[in-house]
């Protein structure tokens, strides 16, 4: 606070705070209050609203733990509530997608930040932005087409003799979520790339040279010097990709296999198909809470402090 006033003076600080307050209050908190309140009340016909059944309870939240169903985790048969299972799968595969986007975008970010001639950068970045002109739904659908049984991927692989007969990629080779993960990675890889690029770019080239000069192999330089420096960018990117993946509805709907389920689909079902906004809202808030906990845990695990992201 002190720091803010010192750095930006009163007028600007208040302007910043006003903007943020407008966002958080008028666009996030207040609009959701209605639904938040509703999430503690049962879904009732109008005639019964305000009636004796209309009381506050945690019932809607408790539905999360209903419906135990069998769950096969690496060959072990478990019983878990259906929603918990969906939630955990969503978190798990979002995490996988986050890791893959990181693996894909780190070299690219490094390339753009430290290898490429700065002059060709704008063109390259423009190229990277092109896919965004095509909406996520269409891009997901394009992957759907690529991965279909009669689709181009099978045609090519069978054509060159790598496969004997076509595979149902969408059903998954490793898990039922393969195609979803592919779609998520494709959709969000740039959200990982840009923050990492930004943080690597600010690394003094001499740091890299010093490390090399001291005898570090390229991977040692990356591991000990560049990655730690890029950590805030990686953390930003990971939070974004994870949240986007976990919050994605289109990709899992289009690319999901016949035994995949995404938590957003469950929420969507409550909100729209079942028309039960109360439970839908309860699930949304619960989901946000749980995901925040997951993100906080991950940050703690990777020793990323918020103060690293926000120095």
């Amino acid at each position, binding site marked *: 606070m002190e720091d803010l006033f010192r750095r930006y003076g009163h007028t600007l600080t208040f302007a910043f705070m006003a903007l943020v307050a407008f966002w958080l209050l008028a666009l996030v908190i207040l609009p959701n209050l209605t639904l938040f309140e509703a999430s503690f009340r049962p*879904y009732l*016909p*109008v*005639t019964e609203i305000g009636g004796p059944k209309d009381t506050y309870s945690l019932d809607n939240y408790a539905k999360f733990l*209903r*419906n135990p*169903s069998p769950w096969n985790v690496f060959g072990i048969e478990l019983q878990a509530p*259906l929603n918990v*299972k*969906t939630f955990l*799968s969503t978190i798990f595969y979002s995490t996988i997608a986050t890791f893959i986007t990181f693996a894909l975008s780190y070299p690219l970010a490094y390339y753009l930040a430290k290898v490429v001639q700065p002059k060709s950068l704008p063109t390259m970045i423009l190229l990277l932005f092109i896919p965004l002109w095509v909406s996520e739904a269409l891009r997901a*659908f394009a992957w*759907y*087409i690529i991965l*279909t*049984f*009669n*689709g181009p991927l099978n045609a090519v692989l069978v054509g060159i003799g790598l496969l004997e007969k076509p595979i*149902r990629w*969408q*059903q998954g080779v490793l898990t039922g979520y393969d195609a979803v993960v592919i779609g998520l990675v494709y959709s969000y890889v740039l959200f990982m790339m840009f923050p990492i690029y930004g943080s690597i770019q600010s690394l003094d080239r001499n740091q890299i040279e010093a490390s090399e000069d001291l005898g570090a192999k390229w991977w040692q330089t990356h591991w000990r010097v560049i990655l730690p420096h890029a950590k805030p960018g990686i953390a930003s990117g990971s939070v974004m990709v994870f949240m986007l993946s976990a919050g994605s509805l289109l990709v899992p*709907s*289009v690319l*999901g296999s*016949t*035994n*995949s*389920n995404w938590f957003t689909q*469950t929420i969507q*079902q*409550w*909100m*729209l*198909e*079942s*028309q*039960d*906004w109360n*439970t839908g809202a309860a699930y949304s808030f619960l989901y946000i809470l749980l995901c925040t906990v997951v993100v906080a845990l991950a940050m703690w695990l990777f020793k990323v402090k918020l103060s690293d992201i926000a120095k």
Partner: protein
Amino acid sequence: SSGEINFTGWAGYPKLSEVVFPAFTAATGIKVNFTELPDQDAMFAQAKVAIEAGGIDVIEPTIDRWGGWNSNGLLQPFDESKLAMANYLPGLADGAAGERSRKDGALYYVPSNWGTESLVAKESDAKLSTPPSLGDLFNPDNQVVVRPHSTLAAMGRWLDAQGKLPFPWMDGYTDMDKMVQLWDIALAEAIKAKGNVVQFWSGENEANAGFTANGATLGLNWDSTGYNLRKDGYKYLAPVEGAFAWHQGFVLMKNAVNVEQAHEFVKFVSTPEGAAGWATAFSSNPVAKGAGDLLDPEVSAYYNGTFNDDALKALWWWPDQSADFIAKRGEYADKYKSA
């Protein structure tokens, strides 16, 4: 008369705006403000907001859903005297359907068109029993494309037809206890047979691609899917248990401002011209007498090929589904999906 009407309906049927509404405006002078929505879930959500904010007069849900809408306090009844109930084909606005359109004697729902969800089969590859049955969907030799909750209903009806259920399947739609028992059985059986499902569909594109790109040989799909694939070696078939039939129509918002115009509008769709236009736009079936003659001949030929009189008689109309029921149904669909 004159004025306007705010109508919220299904998106993606351009002929409504191009043909039907202009004809209506020409006939009555009433302008149609059309809001397109992807599905009736979105319509319900919008209606719930509109009950406070206003802006909607008439919406177009299916017959099995308006009950839930009404219990949420969204609707008001039509004034039958301002409509032409005699215009409708038998069985659509009277009889059992007529009962389902009313609550406490008041008419809340008036039909606009109807259609089916039935078997789409690849002629060369599908393994069909004779006559075709819903059970073919669970034959491991077929690669099927379905949607989860319809699959469970199909399973239920198939088991019911074989006498393998403790109560009639229809009981599940009125008695929640029985519903749980029946759907548990259907779910268990469906999960056993799930291996042949190559894809779930939720919209026309996915259903279509399920066959063409993903190589499905059989599916439980809307009639439009069958229609779109009719030249590619696919047939639209009615199962011996009877095709699922949906029944779509108009409801009047409780806080509608243009009530007079709304009645005019609904009435117009019961004229041969209006009903034919509506059915043509949806590639579905008309609700008015005399409308069949005005239909696109290709469309009528297509339906006549699938539904002879027996098949028409056997149609299984989606029963009313209460809010509780739909919520429960959703949970079953979830279990089936993630099994």
